[in-house]
């Protein structure tokens, strides 16, 4: 049987062999942890601690005001030694709480296991998820409790767990699925209960058949849950593309998956939900892959939030010569950082150090209209036209050509023989369109 997928996409070399077989190692907890107060999309949190405060592991140290906001917890016990504006792997500077680790690993009183998780009300599960500060761990960092909240006039018909991990180099999700399949399935059952949905799908790419098997075995006892194997293709793990592959439904531009009755969560998120519900532990650590051709010993780690990239790199044997870029996340959609002194945050799925080898060597050429970008675009856009509009600030034309539908997967740039930074132009176009919309005017001058 042909495996379900989506139209378009690319097949970059996966480089997953470097870490796929490496069991997850618990990373050393450093002496100082740097916990940014913005680890989710939405308004940043306000600090609930001041310099000199003693904090315990799992204690809430940041709380947000906005609707799409999430709590921040201390990931070790210790002393707050500073709250400073620091560089963040997301490409910006944000206030960061610095905690001196006292090595006592004392849990906060709020962290209590639940005696009978199967008796929890759906609303209570959402509350627990909110209190645990769980956000989407695939990289989008959308607060999970917001996702589970009921939306007027819609009903979730299927919960899809995303175990695709289509980004090259990354294997952290693969390892979770192999090592903690029970937790993932348990998390899925809580999510399904919280949204009142009977159908669950766990999607796994066909380069991880062992993980699919493990999950299948774990889910055997749970009715309504199936494991769907999808072909290896980038960006198979993109939310809308995955929904299409699993259900045949297309989420309209600008809409959320709930518009077609689907909820998508990362497998790591599901495991975190299970921990929060059963053990009461908030999200203070995550799985991630340290890899790339610029790292001596690529590995998968279980890392406390707030550990600096540099400390993980050191545990992996340090860098090799010629590292040009350090990427937070996968190399297709991750952001480069300018120093490895930035902390791991909830959305950091990997740290990839790249030497110049895989970057386009040649210069940028004019567009030769080869249309490879159009063929590759999973959103069925014409990236080259969008980039041309953005280049001459024709925002209105860009909006007409659906610039806002771009999912920024980077497939177009990967295939472009002229090495045009199409996505950056498109992002610029989106920014301008949003600014014009916010200004309440028709798109006009940028």
């Amino acid at each position, binding site marked *: 049987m042909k495996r379900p997928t989506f139209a378009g996409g690319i097949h970059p070399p996966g480089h997953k062999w470097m870490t796929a077989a490496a069991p997850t190692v618990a990373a050393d907890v450093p002496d100082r942890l740097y916990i940014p107060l913005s680890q989710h999309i939405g308004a940043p949190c306000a600090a609930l601690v001041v310099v000199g405060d003693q904090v315990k592991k799992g204690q809430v140290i940041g709380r947000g005001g906005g609707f799409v906001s999430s709590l921040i917890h201390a990931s070790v016990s210790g002393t707050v030694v500073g709250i400073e504006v620091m560089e963040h792997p997301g490409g910006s500077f944000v206030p960061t709480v610095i905690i001196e680790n006292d090595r006592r690993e004392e849990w906060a009183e709020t962290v209590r296991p639940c005696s009978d998780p199967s008796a929890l009300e759906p609303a209570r599960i959402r509350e627990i998820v909110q209190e645990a500060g769980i956000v989407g761990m695939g990289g989008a960092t959308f607060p999970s409790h917001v996702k589970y909240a009921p939306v007027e006039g819609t009903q979730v018909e299927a919960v899809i767990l995303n175990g695709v991990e289509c980004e090259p180099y990354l294997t952290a999700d693969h390892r979770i699925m192999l090592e903690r399949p029970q937790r993932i399935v348990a998390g899925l059952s809580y999510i399904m209960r919280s949204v009142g949905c009977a159908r669950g799908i766990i999607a796994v790419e066909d380069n991880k058949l062992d993980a699919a098997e493990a999950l299948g075995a774990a889910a055997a006892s749970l009715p309504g849950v199936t494991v769907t194997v999808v072909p290896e293709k980038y960006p198979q793990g993109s939310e809308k593309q995955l929904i299409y592959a699993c259900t045949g439904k297309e989420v309209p531009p600008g809409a959320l998956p709930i518009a077609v009755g689907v909820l998508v969560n990362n497998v790591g998120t599901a495991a975190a939900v299970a921990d929060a519900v059963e053990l009461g532990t908030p999200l203070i650590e995550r799985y991630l892959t340290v890899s790339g051709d610029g790292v001596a010993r690529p590995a998968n780690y279980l890392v406390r939030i707030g550990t600096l990239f540099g400390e993980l790199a050191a545990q992996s044997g340090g860098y090799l010569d010629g590292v040009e870029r350090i990427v937070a996340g996968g190399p297709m959609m991750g952001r480069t950082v300018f120093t490895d002194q930035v902390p791991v945050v909830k959305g950091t799925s990997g740290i990839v150090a790249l030497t110049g080898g895989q970057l386009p060597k040649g210069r940028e050429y*004019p567009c030769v209209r080869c249309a490879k970008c159009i063929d590759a675009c999973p959103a069925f856009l014409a990236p080259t036209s969008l980039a*041309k509009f953005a*280049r*001459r600030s024709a925002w209105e034309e860009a909006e007409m050509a659906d610039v806002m539908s771009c999912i920024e997967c980077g497939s177009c740039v990967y295939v472009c023989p002229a090495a045009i930074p199409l996505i950056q132009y498109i992002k610029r176009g989106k920014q301008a369109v949003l600014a014009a919309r916010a200004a309440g005017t028709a798109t006009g001058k940028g």
Partner: protein
Amino acid sequence: MQEYFIIVVSAVLINNIVLSQFLGICPFLGVSKKLSASLGMGGAVSFVLVLAGALTWLVQRYLLDPFRVGYLQTLAFILIIASLVQFVEMVLRKFSPPLYKALGIYLPLITTNCAVLGVAIINIQKEYTLGKVLVHSLSHAAGFTLALVLMSGIRERLEDADIPESMQGTPIALVTAALMSMAFLGFSGLI
């Protein structure tokens, strides 16, 4: 029937009014920057062209010829066309201000659009009947619109092109027209 068919093919493709007869170059170069405007201009010219073709034919046939004042042809025709254009202009301004704005200064230029006068004169030279005059005028108008629309499509694409500074604008439009006209040579000898 065959005759009409030949007139159409010849006027639209082989002897395209712009690309091989060189009539109506001004609006061809001026209004071909945007597709929407070129469609409007094509429409306006077509309308004027067909009306003018019929009117001039009638005047020639029932006024100039019977009174043996054929030498007044140029004068009489230009008079008719000028009035007609002014009329169309007024109608457009009244009923479609956006179109009027888009066509801008080119509407009055239809008066001095040699395509209109040229086709009117060719109509008489070829001694067509009224039916053929209508078909002939309409086909030339279609040829004009076709060339204009194709040109504007190309020029919209050229907006992103890295054209040498001194070639931008009219020069590159002329070279494009040259290459289009070379492509249209492929139709020569058709039928």
